[in-house]
């Protein structure tokens, strides 16, 4: 079979935040929204289900969750039904794998869903085994656990080398919270002022409360299919998967691949590959959803994705060049800082926002957007994942 063009045609989300609902309940909410979004799509047409979740085995006490979810949403996959885990990039990895399955003819219509239930009724259990997401035996044995201490080192390094300021970190939070304030799915739908961000309580200096993504329950889902089927199922503009990359160069702190902690060579490598596959460059991207797990992350991502020069990410965000009306609007739905971060769902939430942007139906619309990019960082910065979507194949 010749290679087929692959399109993203619909998406849905549960509401995100602190939920009294199971991961399976929330997956069902997200899937229902997918079917509402593409009314011509019948459940019987879905032959593949990929579900991205890292912590379901721990915080929901459910492994082999894909068949459980398939049953709850009433689909009977015949080509592929599996869970996958690349922590914060699981959803994007699912979209990449679904693209490969559909492009090659191994599957026709795939739902990529993902999510986490991170708050548990016994609050002491909540998200408290994060050492499992790094090299547990070695980094974990030293007490490297939750992410803020690692990203504070990254922020300090960037501030020292390039003169990045706390005000510039804060500008990312102010922008993304403003973008998220009109997103009904976001965990936080309230704007914050620069003063509020600057004076918030410290988490690990220089990072304070609004520099950090929260802990979140939530699920998201999207539907992918081949071009001809997409035309059959939807009257909306087609959105094609044009370029993908997932780059993994190390798995622990002491094997860091860059010159210093603010030098993200693995992201540069991923960007180069994804741009080449999509036949575009950074100047062609009209809208981007990048992984703002911490404010410093978005600043370095602007540099490594080629939106500005190395070291100039701070002034770039502070001057509004990553905002509406600037060079490239980034995290138009509020990003992780507003929406929250139920790991396996995040890449899918980003895909859904790019789908809406390229179809002209986003809540905060970038006028005339034709090419969009999503980016995830996984774990303690061990892996970078990029997808580029376009209105043309």
């Amino acid at each position, binding site marked *: 079979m010749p290679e087929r063009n692959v399109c993203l045609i619909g998406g849905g989300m549960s509401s995100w935040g602190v939920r009294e609902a199971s991961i399976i309940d929330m997956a069902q909410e997200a899937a229902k929204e997918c079917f509402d979004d593409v009314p011509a799509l019948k459940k019987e047409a879905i032959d593949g289900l990929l579900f991205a979740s890292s912590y379901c085995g721990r915080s929901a006490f459910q492994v082999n969750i894909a068949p459980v979810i398939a049953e709850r949403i009433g689909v009977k996959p015949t080509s592929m039904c599996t869970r996958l885990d690349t922590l914060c990039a699981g959803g994007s990895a699912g979209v990449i794998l679904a693209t490969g399955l559909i492009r090659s003819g191994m599957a026709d219509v795939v739902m990529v869903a993902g999510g986490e239930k991170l708050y548990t009724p016994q609050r002491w259990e909540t998200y408290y085994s994060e050492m499992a997401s790094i090299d547990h035996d070695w980094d974990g*044995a*030293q007490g490297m656990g939750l992410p803020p201490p690692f990203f504070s080192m990254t922020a300090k390094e960037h501030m020292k080398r390039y003169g990045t300021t706390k005000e510039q970190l804060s500008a990312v939070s102010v922008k993304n919270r403003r973008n998220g304030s009109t997103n009904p799915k976001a965990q936080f739908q309230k704007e914050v002022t620069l003063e509020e961000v600057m004076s918030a309580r410290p*988490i690990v200096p220089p990072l304070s409360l609004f520099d950090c993504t929260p802990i979140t329950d939530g699920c998201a889902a999207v539907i992918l299919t081949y071009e001809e089927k997409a035309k059959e199922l939807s009257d909306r503009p087609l959105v094609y998967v044009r370029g993908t990359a997932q780059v993994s160069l190390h798995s622990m702190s*002491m094997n860091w691949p860059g010159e210093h902690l603010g030098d993200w060579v693995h992201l540069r490598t991923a960007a180069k590959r994804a741009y080449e596959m999509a036949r575009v460059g950074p100047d062609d991207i009209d809208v981007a959803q990048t992984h703002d797990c911490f404010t410093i992350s978005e600043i370095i991502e602007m540099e490594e994705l080629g939106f500005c020069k190395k070291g100039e990410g701070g002034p770039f965000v502070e001057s509004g060049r990553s905002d509406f009306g600037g060079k490239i609007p980034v995290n138009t739905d509020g990003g992780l800082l507003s929406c929250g971060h139920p790991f396996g769902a995040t890449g899918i939430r980003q895909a859904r926002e790019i789908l809406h942007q390229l179809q002209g139906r986003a809540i905060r619309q970038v006028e005339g957007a034709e090419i969009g990019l999503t980016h995830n960082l996984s774990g303690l910065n061990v892996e970078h994942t990029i997808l580029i979507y376009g209105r043309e194949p």
Partner: protein
Amino acid sequence: MGFENFGTVTFTTEAKTADFINYLGAGKVMATRCKKCGATYFPPRLDCPTCLSSEVEWFEVAGKGKLRSYTRVNYGPSGFEADAPYILALGEFDGVQILARLSRDIGENDIEVGMSLKVSPLKLPEGRLAYEFRRA
């Protein structure tokens, strides 16, 4: 003896490098060097990640290193709740880079990037073993 006496953990691994813990008990922090390609590793690897050879030898990380970066853990993960706050540091040694806790003897105001460090075995309560950075 193996990993059950190493560090502070919530899950005990079984790994081919369990001799590392025996060396710690004898007062030495060890890394590995591949006899075939010369690549050095910390944490130790009994099969070389560079050339995949299994002919590796242990060597002691005995020299002075330099502090590359550090951070403070305010909220300890499972098993570390009572320890926090503490300092984690990255140290560069001859051929290897190490992440370890900084000794509590070094006050946070005295920490400087580039300062000289050594890595030393650390005895924890109940016979557990770990390693930490101390002033060199």
